């Protein structure tokens, strides 16, 4: 027994010593003389990678930057609110040149970290941080939502369409305002059902929210609900009706039912931010991405939208770019919005 204990202790000791050596050795081996690449990093919100939405899109943006600028990309996924600051600071300390925070919940943490590391550049997707080393990236979701709203109103044969949001936030409200205005423009008499699930993370809840809308006659429902929205897509599949995806082209999730997707190219914004750092002309402040910047669009994958309606949407798109149509971004703007005579 005593011998065994001794043996165990010995093995333990060796393991501990070896681990120290190995770790030390590994470190030397991991950083060879090879040229040092700039590291560009991001911190996800609590949805993490694999959300089929803007975390993945931001990660794609860094992937494109790897090819275009020869940088190295890195990501830290957050599991909880309290982890945002340590994640951002760890990346800053490890010598990342740019650290992008994704999602509005991370805003306080970006502000705190950016102040602590004034020499490092930060990006903030979907939120405002007023510091010279932070680029706040905003999207004009109302422009894209306007287009899919018009498409939905034209496609439905019942004069009824739906909208399912995750939580009611200024961003989702911006989608809603644009969507309703677009629908109103295409068909002044259209009826829009709106419901918010209260969560971005519950697919079952999404289905629960979408079903009554379909049952009341909506033939197209626009989902702006993250994971919850996957349930809306499921509901559409079961009912054999249409759904409009969000953030990325979601047609592959239900090729017969995802009529279109409102695309929010977070990747373009991230790629641009990396470009500014690489070129040495990074400027803090607010960056707005809309149709004009190629960051907001609607998808036509699957060719489910009739040709004349696609043409109609493209015509609206041109008018938004030229400033002829200003899609409302808030409820107040929606209130005073009058459909343009086309």
């Amino acid at each position, binding site marked *: 027994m005593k011998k065994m204990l001794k043996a165990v202790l010995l093995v333990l000791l060796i393991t501990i010593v070896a*681990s120290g050596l190995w*770790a030390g050795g590994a470190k030397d081996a991991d950083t060879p003389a090879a040229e040092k690449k700039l590291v560009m990093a991001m911190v996800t919100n609590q949805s993490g990678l694999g959300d089929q939405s803007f975390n993945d899109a931001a990660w794609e943006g860094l992937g494109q930057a790897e090819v275009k600028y020869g940088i190295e990309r890195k990501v830290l*996924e957050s599991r909880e609110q309290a982890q945002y600051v340590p994640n951002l600071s760890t990346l800053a300390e490890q010598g990342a040149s740019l650290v992008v925070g994704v999602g509005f919940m991370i805003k306080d943490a970006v502000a705190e970290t950016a102040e602590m590391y004034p020499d490092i550049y930060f990006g903030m997707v979907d939120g405002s941080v007023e510091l010279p080393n932070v680029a706040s990236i905003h999207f004009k979701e109302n422009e894209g939502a306007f287009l899919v709203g018009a498409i939905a109103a034209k496609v439905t044969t019942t004069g009824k369409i739906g909208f399912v949001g995750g939580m009611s936030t200024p961003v989702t409200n911006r989608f809603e305002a644009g969507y309703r205005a677009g629908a109103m423009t295409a068909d002044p008499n259209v009826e829009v059902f709106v419901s918010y699930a209260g969560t971005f993370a519950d697919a079952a809840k999404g289905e629960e929210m979408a079903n009554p809308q379909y049952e009341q006659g909506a033939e197209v429902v626009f989902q702006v609900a993250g994971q919850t929205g996957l349930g809306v897509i499921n509901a559409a599949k079961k009912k054999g009706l249409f759904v409009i995806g969000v953030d990325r082209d979601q047609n592959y999730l239900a090729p017969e039912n995802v009529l279109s997707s409102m695309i929010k190219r977070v990747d373009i914004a991230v790629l641009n931010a990396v470009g500014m750092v690489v070129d040495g002309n990074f400027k803090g402040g607010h960056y707005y991405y809309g149709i004009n910047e190629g960051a907001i669009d609607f998808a036509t994958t699957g060719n489910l939208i009739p040709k004349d309606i696609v043409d109609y949407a493209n015509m609206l798109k041109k008018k938004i770019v030229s400033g002829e149509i200003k899609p409302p971004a808030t409820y107040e703007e929606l209130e005073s919005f009058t459909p343009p005579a086309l």
Partner: protein
Amino acid sequence: MNKNSLYNIFIENDSVFAFVKAFLAVLSAFILVYFILLVTGYRPLPVYSALFQGAFGSRRGFGETLLSTTPLLFSGLGFALAYRCGLFNIGLEGQITMGGIAAAFFGFIIPEINPFIHVLICISAGALAGGMWGFIPGYLKAKFGVHEVISVIMLNHIAFKFAAYLVSMQGPMKDKIDDMPASPVISESAKIVRIVSRTRLHWGIFLGIVIAVLVWFLLFRLRLGFKIRAVGKNPYAAEAAGISIKKHIIITLSLSGALGGLAGAVEILGVHYRLFAAFSPGYGFDAIAVALLGMVNPIGIIASSFLFGILRSGSVFMQAMYGVNKDMVSVITAIIVFFMGMSIPIGILIKDRIKRKNHGLDV
């Protein structure tokens, strides 16, 4: 020197034995995780070294370790106190949430005043709110025999949804200026002062240690603590001796809830500075493992909460250095927690083995 003296020290000295048990539990967890990492394609030793490097390797890292220790210390104490009275308080998460809500409310509603007084008000409000959330199941159990596990789980959900409602777009505590679903930022004077520059470490950790000593004193040196433990060991014997079961259940659950409330208040005043719906990522549930690993002894809990703090802060580095993804990190910490829970059976196993040896049953 007697041949068996070393073993005898282990089993005869309770605190030494407790430490040995906990150590073995943690060690077995690390060995199992070693193989899991190997199978999933990571190099285990560097990953482990990253864990400790993250937790101790820099001033900021160490600060984060102590920072994550703080709420676990408070809530671990809360669980231990109830456990000593034979109560299973799985409702700490809800009590933390209520404490956080109260602290945040008094944090932003009161303008800048003397920081000491302001923090004191907020912390007391947090403890009171958490205490109330512990009093309810205590009262229900004492008066109507409602099992505390059922009622606290329900109260958890009420607390979570209540917090979510308060900071939702139409909620009464939602910040009117900011886009985020969060309360307004608390006044400067309500923020718990940070200890070391460039880290988030604040004085809450010292408050936690003081409270741990107080809870120890209460449990083992005060008459009330003796009565609480008596009810926990054998309620009917206690009652026969003139100790009221009902009264002590209510008192203990209220105090336990108050400790949870403190955890929430300190977390809001020291880390977040505003109320988020899900500001506590499950400290109240980790508290169970923390308390059990710490042998439900306040001093042991200081050590076990520190160990959990290491896991929490070190896991960031594991991800950053070796790309261990966040779900894998959760699996690793869960296995360690699981084995920590196993420390009690491990202890029984060792004791049994040594007894056999001492009786000459094993050569």
